[in-house]
């Protein structure tokens, strides 16, 4: 029967492998877009498009700022580095973004409509009826310091309205200006030249990073040898991504090496055989492969985060293998059959409780968590079935005879919890942990700021700040999305926004903004301007002005009130940046510089229709916060869901005893995070879910353990703990914040889950199961010290409860009641 089932399982796995191979051949598609994890919203397509457009523009930008005390050197190096970027074929340089031609085109675009355009300052003067001020300002400038203005322009525009409009355009990079064809700024005797380009490939692709940064670094190093004072600063997602992947790769190689060598050595030294090693790898491998195969069948796109967490969660299956193989040291288990039988109740209950813990994630209304849940439920089941069906067949090992020392050592922990003479130590330890838990939990605070999780290279961050300061741009990722039926309505909304944003700017909440309406006013605004100029400026002051200057009267405009339209400006492509601000007719972006308070912005603009604040970083932060919140709740729900199973098996008090180690471990791990001063994140919470499942596994193994198997059980738990620590605990040493968070929680949580696991040993299966394989018959056991141990650890809230167990109290089965019941495993396995 088992052989048949094992064969069927093999066929199933082969089918899954075939499916996986076919999918792989067709091209595996993993989604890396963190937004894919978000719950769907009604407006998502629009938001996504806007987000994508802006994020793309930001993330694909490559900026170099080249500085040297010698202007010629700076220019020469800028040209050479531009060349280097261009020859990689990955970057399209934006050399002409502000070239003379572009500026000429800009002038040509606006000139015919100069009667419709007013700078904010002139407009407010005219609205206040102070046309004379405008006129006199113009005269002062014309007569003033050697004259600022082109003579031909004055003749057409004696009030210098167009000049005023042009100089007050909100052009980004306000500190840069064009010097002989290169965007330049200078400070403290150093000439800085800007070289910008757009990356034509994915900035997060490793090969792209290498192909771009390799040659660039080489060239810069070469140029530095020639010019001692040369400085080159860089900015761009590709540089951050490359630095990040470098750290990750370095870490992966060191941490991975520690983890792999450690695990292999541990298994080889413990078992002195190779089989437990490869068979455990097989179990986890089958779990991950099956999960991947089925998930790819169920979902169109699998998120990379699902793979990461899913595989971690499946990793628990190693425990089953460890537990199984620790039976090698049990002299009572001579055959694979007996080994499986001895651990079956433990791993089955462990499997069921873990499954419940994971399945609960399916209920979360987050696509990401749901995928993780399904992935890990499938993987864990596949691993479990593999242990169940295959291990007895592939296990050809004879009982190990070298384990006496290890068993003794492993059993020490159990004895510590059991023996009455350690009571004082236990009490002191319990008190210390209680105090630490209280202090830690009080200090625990949530921090979902996605920027802290990214762990960006500090050196590159400093360069970014310096570049932004030097060129006067803050390349913020926040923006406003204006959506309306058509461009005209959208422009009018932006004009409604302008005074609100100006007020925020005067309060210092906002540094600046660029809206399409500042470049192309709405038709309504242009007509209003024209009337304003006519009534408040031309009629009262024009004659006087031209007489003063000695100019002929300018011709009345004969454009029949034509207005400059967005379509026209876009068609001629003469306004730089406008293309990135207008996504499609009626859907515009208002870029924000140096926003300090998103909340204040939201409040300020809530009156304007069809405007949304888009803050991708803030959205990620909110997303992570929601996920964290859910994850914590799911831990609680998971505990509650596991309880019926545990109560059915161990009775009320027994269930509490089995649950206590993992709950305490979670609490202490959370307290440790608080004590370490770290903000609690989604990644900590995910690790807690894992700690909870592993902790319950350990406790169940202990609870299911017969008295004479205590040491063997503890050895299994030891091994499971050490392998898990070697794979996850080492992540605590990662420099990537999210990975570190996960690792640290695992490290602390696992250690406590392990240390406390024997507490569950005094909970015993209370059901009277017939067991034809029963080896041990009636076991005598002393519950007294164990009970008191638990009492000492503060887990049983029964004031005055002596060491004497009370029959019938909350389902707790006294020793008499259980005498003869603990025959052990009987969960439905028949040959």
């Amino acid at each position, binding site marked *: 029967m088992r052989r048949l089932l094992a064969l069927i399982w093999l066929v199933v796995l082969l089918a899954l492998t075939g499916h996986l191979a076919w999918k792989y051949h067709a091209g595996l598609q993993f989604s890396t877009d963190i937004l894919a994890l978000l719950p769907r919203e009604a407006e998502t397509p629009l938001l996504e498009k806007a987000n994508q457009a802006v994020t793309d523009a930001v993330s694909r930008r490559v900026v170099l700022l080249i500085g040297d005390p010698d202007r010629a050197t700076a220019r020469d190096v800028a040209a050479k580095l531009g060349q280097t970027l261009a020859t990689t074929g990955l970057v399209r340089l934006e050399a002409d973004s502000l070239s003379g031609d572009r500026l*000429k085109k800009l002038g040509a675009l606006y000139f015919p409509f100069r009667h419709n355009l007013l700078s904010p300052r002139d407009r407010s003067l005219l609205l206040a009826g102070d046309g004379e001020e405008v006129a006199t300002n113009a*005269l002062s400038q014309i*007569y003033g310091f050697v*004259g600022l203005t082109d003579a031909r322009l004055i003749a057409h525009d004696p009030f210098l309205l167009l000049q005023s409009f042009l100089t007050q355009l909100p052009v980004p990079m306000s500190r840069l200006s064009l*010097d*002989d064809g290169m965007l330049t700024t200078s400070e403290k005797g150093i*000439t800085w030249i800007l070289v910008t380009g757009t990356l034509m490939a994915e900035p997060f692709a490793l090969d792209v990073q290498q192909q771009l940064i390799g040659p660039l670094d080489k060239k810069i190093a070469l140029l530095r040898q020639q010019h001692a004072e040369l400085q080159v600063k860089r900015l761009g997602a590709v540089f951050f991504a490359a630095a990040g992947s470098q750290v990750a790769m370095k870490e992966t190689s060191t941490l991975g090496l520690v983890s792999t060598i450690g695990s292999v050595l541990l298994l080889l030294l413990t078992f002195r055989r190779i089989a437990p090693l490869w068979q455990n790898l097989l179990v986890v491998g089958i779990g991950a492969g099956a999960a991947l195969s089925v998930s790819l069948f169920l979902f169109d796109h699998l998120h990379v985060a699902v793979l990461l967490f899913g595989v971690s969660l499946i990793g628990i299956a190693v425990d089953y293998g460890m537990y199984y193989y620790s039976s090698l040291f049990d002299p009572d288990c001579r055959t694979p059959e007996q080994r499986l039988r001895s651990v079956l109740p433990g791993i089955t209950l462990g499997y069921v409780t873990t499954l419940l813990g994971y399945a609960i994630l399916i209920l979360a209304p987050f696509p990401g968590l749901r995928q993780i849940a399904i992935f890990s439920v499938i993987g864990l089941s596949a691993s479990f079935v593999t242990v169940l069906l295959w291990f007895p067949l592939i296990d050809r090992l004879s009982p190990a005879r070298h384990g006496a020392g290890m068993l003794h050592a492993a059993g020490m922990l159990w004895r510590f919890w059991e023996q009455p003479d350690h009571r004082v130590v236990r009490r002191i330890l319990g008190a210390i942990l209680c105090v630490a838990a209280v202090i830690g939990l009080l200090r625990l605070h949530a921090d979902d700021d996605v920027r802290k999780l990214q762990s960006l290279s500090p050196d590159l961050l400093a360069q970014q700040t310096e570049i932004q300061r030097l060129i006067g741009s803050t390349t913020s990722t926040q923006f406003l999305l204006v959506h309306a039926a058509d461009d005209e309505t959208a422009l009018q909304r932006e004009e409604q926004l302008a005074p609100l944003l100006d007020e925020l700017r005067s309060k210092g909440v906002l540094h600046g903004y660029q809206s399409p309406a500042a470049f192309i006013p709405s038709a309504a605004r242009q007509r209003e301007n024209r009337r304003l100029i006519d009534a408040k400026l031309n009629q009262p002051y024009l004659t006087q002005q031209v007489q003063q200057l*000695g100019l002929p009267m300018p011709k009345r405009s004969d454009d029949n009130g034509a207005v400059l339209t967005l379509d026209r400006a876009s068609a001629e492509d003469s306004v730089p940046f406008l293309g990135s601000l207008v996504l499609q007719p009626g859907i515009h972006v208002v870029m924000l510089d140096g926003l300090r308070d998103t909340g204040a912005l939201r409040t300020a603009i809530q009156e304007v229709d069809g405007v949304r604040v888009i803050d991708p970083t803030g959205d990620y932060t909110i997303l992570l916060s929601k996920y964290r919140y859910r994850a914590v709740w799911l831990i609680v729900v998971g505990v509650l869901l596991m309880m019926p199973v545990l109560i059915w098996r161990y009775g009320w008090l027994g269930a509490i005893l089995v649950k206590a180690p993992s709950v305490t471990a979670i609490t202490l791990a959370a307290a440790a995070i608080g004590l370490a001063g770290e903000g609690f994140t989604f990644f900590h919470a995910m690790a807690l879910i894992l700690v909870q499942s592993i902790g319950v596994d350990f406790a169940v193994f202990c609870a299911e353990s017969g008295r004479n198997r205590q040491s063997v059980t503890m050895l299994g738990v030891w091994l499971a703990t050490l392998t898990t620590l070697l794979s996850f605990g080492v992540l605590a040493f990662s420099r990537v914040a999210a990975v570190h968070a996960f690792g640290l929680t695992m490290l602390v949580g696992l250690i406590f889950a392990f240390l406390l696991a024997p507490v569950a040993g005094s909970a015993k299966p209370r059901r009277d199961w017939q067991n034809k394989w029963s080896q041990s018959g009636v076991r005598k056991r002393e519950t007294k010290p164990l009970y008191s141990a638990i009492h000492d650890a503060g887990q049983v809230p029964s004031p005055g409860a002596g060491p004497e167990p009370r029959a019938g109290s909350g389902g707790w089965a006294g020793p008499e009641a259980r005498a003869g019941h603990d025959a052990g495993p009987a969960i439905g396995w028949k040959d």
Partner: protein
Amino acid sequence: MRKIAVRKILVLIAAMLLSCLTIAVLSNSTAQAADPQIGEPLKQGEILRGRFTQERSLQGFQAPLKSEGSFVVAQGKGLIWTVEKPYPTTTVITPNGLVQEARGNETLRLPASRVPFLTRLYDMLSGTMTGDWNAMKSQFSIETAGTAENWTLQLRPKSAGGASMPISEMRIQGGRYVNDVDMHRPSGDRDRLQFHDQTVGSGPLSEAETKLFEGALKK
């Protein structure tokens, strides 16, 4: 916009050339043909004051635009150019850039970082003040003529028509001080400046002048 940007640069060049040449020439001894050595620099703390008349001949205008006023050059600080008639404006130029005020309101502020040529100009002119004409000669061909008491300098940009060099020709005449500057631009416009009543003193700046310099240095 280009025209305007060019104009601004032009103004700065003119301003700086004028002010600094004035400085350079003020205690003129000899004008040598090979390496113009036409003066000692103002010493730290020394102040040159004077008056000017400006005549702008602009294309399409019936008559030149005339203005007059006073100027102050303070070594190590910068230049204050005050137009008194017909429209009072004050322009302050410092290493930080240019600030213009009219009737108590700031009408223009042009930081030096926006106009890198300004920095180059500083290099050039501080060179001429210390007798190093290399920076100047890299941009202009310079012809000198006359005697120490009555000399002329003719400057022509080496690369004509470049956006950063909008002067087609400049003629400067002086004796102990610069007296007359005649500047031609590629557009055909022409600026003529005449200086008189120049005095050098080491006295302190007036309170108003100090305030102007401070205001210009503010961010």
